[in-house]
């Protein structure tokens, strides 16, 4: 029993350190949504992202800027028929960061880390 509890404690500690290592830039719902919809295409324009993510122009623009600054997406601004047209695509590092995030979250939500011992320790940790 003691062994099981220790095992649970170790798993939870590992999970907690994994949570701390999660890429917070990707973790935000708006940015995660942008990255997800860009990951299934080679490139898309701002209208495509606006429709698919349901974000407002301002919100989309702010989050795109953050992702661009991090080097996760590439933004090409051009004029088409005298109208501004913004084209966005995931960079290699952005695609890598997105896949890493996917794997990390998948690992964290794995059923093993939700063992009874793990959950109990996790509650104790939260109370500290």
């Amino acid at each position: 029993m003691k062994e099981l509890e220790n095992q649970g404690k170790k798993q939870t500690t590992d999970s907690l350190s994994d949570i701390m290592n999660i890429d917070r830039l990707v973790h935000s719902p708006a940015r995660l949504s942008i990255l997800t919809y860009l990951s299934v295409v080679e490139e898309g324009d701002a209208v495509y992202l606006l429709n698919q993510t349901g974000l407002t122009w301002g919100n989309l623009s702010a989050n795109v800027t953050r992702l661009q600054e991090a080097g996760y997406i590439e933004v090409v601004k051009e004029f088409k028929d005298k109208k501004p047209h913004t084209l966005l695509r995931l960079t290699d590092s952005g695609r890598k960061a997105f896949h890493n995030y996917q794997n990390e979250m998948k690992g964290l939500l794995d059923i093993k880390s939700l063992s009874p011992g793990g959950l109990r320790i996790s509650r104790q940790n939260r109370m500290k």
Partner: protein
Amino acid sequence: MDTSDQKNLERRVFTSFFQAGFIEAFTGIFLLQLGLPALFSRSGFGDWESALLTLPIALILLIAVFLVRRFVVTPRLGKVKFLPERRRKLSKLIIVPILTLIAGAIVGYIFTENAPLRHIFVGQIPFSLLPIIVFGAAAYFLDMKRLYVYGAIVGLTFPLGKYLETVIVSRNTLPATILFTAFVFLGIATVFLVALLRKYHEPEV
């Protein structure tokens, strides 16, 4: 999100670009091109006159579809370049016209070489099978299940028209059946377009 989720999302994004009703519009125009000359020629016009009367109608409709796509739909849905995997699958759509040509050649050969078969099959099997093959291939390569249904509807139109011709003794029954299906498809296309216009508004930059 695992790979299958991502594939589903990619498919959902891809099909969302086909919600404007263009496939339905093109099917409707194609059926109009079949039904109208048949109707005109059975109403006393010559073959050339029938074709010449139909051509401007089809052209106007095609131009209208392209203009709607360019100025109404694209600004609302945005532009996307799909992943190479999807583009490869789309390039396989070339199989559709090739299949049509092969099937047409086989059917043509059977008819010209076998007079008895001609009487049994004319207007029935080839006209039913071709749309089913073409729409089936398009449904597979475009990942759109509704195209199987369209194939069945278009495929059934011809035997139904022939059958109705025997029930309602009129020279215009077959063209009228084809035209009815054409208008059903054009109606579906309009419903799709109106739904899209209600759902998406042109964004103000």
